């Protein structure tokens, strides 16, 4: 797996070949609090960079999930249906949301590395 890349909407991306795994960051789950439900895209759905790709719900509110990359959804994390708390306990691991086949790997250039994302969070905290 590659180094994680991050979006300003607090999603992370990990790339292997032309498949990108996407989830929400540790910063995001801390902001949300206890996650109780995740609405994931359908397998086969075409999503485009910056567009809606699901909803994550905490006890207190629902938040949109935006896809940081364009592509076709090829897999979703079905464990989140019974264990949405994985998003809190392991947001950047077992709490991943979905995988997509990237349309355009150059979109990765729009994302931040870990250092830049940390600075982004600190500046926006």
């Amino acid at each position, binding site marked *: 797996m590659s180094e994680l890349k991050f979006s300003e909407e607090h999603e992370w991306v990990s790339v292997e070949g032309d498949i990108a795994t996407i989830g929400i960051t540790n910063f995001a789950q801390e902001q949300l609090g206890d996650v*109780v439900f995740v*609405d994931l895209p359908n397998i086969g759905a075409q999503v485009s960079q910056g567009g809606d790709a699901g909803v994550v719900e905490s006890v*207190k509110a629902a938040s949109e999930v935006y896809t940081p990359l364009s592509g076709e959804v090829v897999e979703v994390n079905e464990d989140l249906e019974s264990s949405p708390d994985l998003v809190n306990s392991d947001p950047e691991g077992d709490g991943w949301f979905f995988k997509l086949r990237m349309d355009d790997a150059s979109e990765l250039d729009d994302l931040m590395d870990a250092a830049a994302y940390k600075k982004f969070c600190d500046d926006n905290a």
Partner: protein
Amino acid sequence: MSADIESEATSLKKTPLHALHQRLGAKMAGFAGYDMPIQYGLGILKEHLHTRAAAGLFDVSHMGQAWLTGADPAAALERMVPGDLQGLAPGRQRYTQFLNGKGGILDDLMVTRAGEPLGHEGLFVVVNAACKDADFARMETTLAGEAALERIEDRALVALQGPLAASVLSRFADGVDTMPFMSAMRVSVAGVDCLVSRSGYSGEDGYEISIPQNDAMGLSETLLGCAEVEAIGLGARDSLRLEAGLCLYGHDIDEGTTPLEAGLLWSIGKRRREQGGFPGAEIVQAQIRDGVARKRVGILPDGRAPAREGTEILSADGKPIGTVTSGGFGPSVGGPVAMGYVAADFAAAGTPVQLSVRGKLLPAAVQKLPFVEQRYYRG
């Protein structure tokens, strides 16, 4: 609740316990003009479950406290609310609502006849934070010459809620463990002169404690020093009251809903139903006689997806029949719970309905409230 959270921290008022919330690492947000703790380190889910299992301490000092005095303050205030206040014995408390001329609810409130148990001649009134300025102004205008309103600005208000609340509080105060539900008294709590009522907003046994503001920090720390007690934020306060089927003003009840539609007829005594004498009485009495077109009900979604406030409710065959007014995740239920208004024909428990959540129709059923059995102290 999230819709009420104001983002601007500037100019927000602080309760006497503000420094305590910060020291405990609470996530703060603006609520009804106050900088309030939404959650502490445990998080909403664990705070909620802790309150149902042991005891939780809530800062509700943003709510409006006042004394109403006069020759007969109960008779005077009855001109604004449908609750039977004249029938209140000293030291007894009642839940009622300020109504407008159409029977719509302007706010809901708790009224205690003080008397000897509280060492005061008046009525002790507690109203919602967001409505308090309007409520108090309306009381002053409506009751001018009949009763005098004295706002209580120098007392904090905390709630100690949960099955172990009585065992905790009785360590510091005499007689509180045998207080009946919906009664109140003036009592020394750990040496502090407090007004204690056995009531709350969680569905659990518990107390609301009005504390002189300079003693509020110390007494709260004393209570939090008990192993059973955790600090609980407004997030869990909302999920606890939702599971308990209790209305949140501005959401489940407002100027456009009447006590009958909201299922609050129980709070209108027999004498008041017959005699009226409160705003909107003709409409309320007609609704008692003829029924209402829509009713507040519990809604239990079948799946895992929460249905939030504003979600449209449809019949099994797809007709719009109502709207969710509060909805979220019920930690003790272990799944989503909601309440809302539906057309009266669909209000029977067990009626299958559908919820329109993000363009999908999700199956749900009307459920009898509360979702979690209320465990008030009945002696």
